[in-house]
């Protein structure tokens, strides 16, 4: 196969567009999940919350107002075909330029700053960028605008193997319980199991890109997802933590082989405002 040349400003363009779309157009899967939840929820206050969130998505889409004032930190997953040759600049600068333009042109809030001096950069750059080289001559850009009410409630733990599946379940459910109203429930719970410390964390974040309602292809893991979902919804935390039947819209698990000495587990919480979009170049 020949080499396909792609100028990096194509990536800037796509990232710019995805930043704006992610922040104003809620995914169909999320809207459908909010509608189903409204029908199931027993708490009147919880039903109100679902009605508001459905209207909110409608207003954001038709008027271009961001879904939430926390327009997040941008996380980009890039899958770059090994037959692609990037030209006219470097990849990471191109991605960050897309973020800068998207946040400026979409009237989105700039939230990134120096972790120690706390000085705001004013343009929401840089993004957190994860890059994989894959077969082929295309680039897949998956972009998430990650709010920090839910990011702050996330956690990684490395358990001894004796902890077993029950231990994993306790940790995940306990995490959602402790987070209570803070991550803006109903949440989507992303769980990464296996690998190393950082691999588990990345898996948990990647799992959040999967549409709500899609199960893991492995039947045992898919079963575990459903068991966790049930236990989490039994917590009673409910929409916005005000009490109710629906605390989580879904649980997504991704796994990777690990070492004989450990069970790494990461829980990444995603608020109902699950803002992610993807595009293929």
């Amino acid at each position, binding site marked *: 196969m020949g080499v396909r040349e792609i100028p990096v400003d194509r990536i800037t363009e796509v990232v710019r567009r995805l930043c704006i779309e992610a922040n104003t157009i809620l995914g169909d899967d999320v809207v459908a999940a909010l509608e189903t939840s409204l029908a199931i929820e027993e708490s009147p*206050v919880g039903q*109100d919350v679902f*009605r508001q*969130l459905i209207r909110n998505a409608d207003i954001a889409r038709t008027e271009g107002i961001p879904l*939430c004032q926390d327009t997040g930190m941008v996380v980009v997953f890039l899958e770059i075909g090994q037959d692609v040759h990037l030209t006219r600049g470097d990849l990471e600068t191109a991605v960050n330029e897309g973020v800068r333009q998207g946040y400026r042109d979409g009237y989105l*809030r700039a939230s990134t700053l120096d972790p120690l001096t706390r000085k705001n950069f004013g343009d929401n750059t840089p993004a957190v960028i994860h890059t994989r080289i894959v077969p082929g001559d295309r680039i897949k850009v998956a972009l998430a605008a990650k709010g920090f009410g839910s990011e702050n409630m996330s956690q990684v733990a490395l358990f001894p193997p004796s902890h077993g599946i029950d231990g994993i379940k306790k940790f995940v459910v306990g995490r959602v319980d402790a987070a*209570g109203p803070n991550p803006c429930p109903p949440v989507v719970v992303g769980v990464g199991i296996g690998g190393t410390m950082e691999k588990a964390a990345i898996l948990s974040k990647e799992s959040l890109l999967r549409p709500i309602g899609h199960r893991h292809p492995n039947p045992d893991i898919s079963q575990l997802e459903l068991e966790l979902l049930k236990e989490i919804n039994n917590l009673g935390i409910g929409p916005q933590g*005000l*009490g109710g039947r629906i605390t989580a819209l879904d649980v997504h698990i991704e796994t990777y082989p690990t070492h004989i000495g450990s069970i790494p587990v990461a829980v990444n919480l995603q*608020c109902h405002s699950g803002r992610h979009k993807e595009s293929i170049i």
Partner: protein
Amino acid sequence: MPGSVVIHPPLSDDTVDKLAIGDRVLISGVIYSARDAAHKRLVELIRENRPLPMDLAGQIIYYVGPTPPQPGMPIGAAGPTTSYRMDPYAPILIEKGLKGMIGKGARGDAVIEAMKRYRAVYFAATGGAGALISKTIKRAEVVAYEDLGTEAIRRLEVEEFPAIVVGDVRGNDLYRDGRMRYRRE
């Protein structure tokens, strides 16, 4: 929202006393925005016995850091931010006459105590309903601390701003009670 009570700030003790957790309210009138950095400054002024940029008596403070407004709009997305970060300051403002706070998430004991003692309420707005809430804000004007950008204190004219009473003057807390009611072992 059906079954909602309409309230107009400044709030009287009588209005505040009648509100109970779980009540749905629509707020119309003037409220003020402030979050972490503005709270710090307000409390410093109070400690130094200096005048505040606005009179707190009967007022409602909304914990919000909006997105920049699009041309022709008063404000951008404007949903609530997490309230516990304001807990170290809130009791001092409540003592000074603040009657209401709007945010999201549970409050600490000192805030709940101050709400009982000086009769104030805590409302939750829906986190992540930034576009919907934006539509209820008809005018926004910076009244102090312009240098804080999104965190400046703004005077907001609101019409039917939707909120839920989550903490009342009797010390009740919907975050605790609501979860208990729906919990299954």
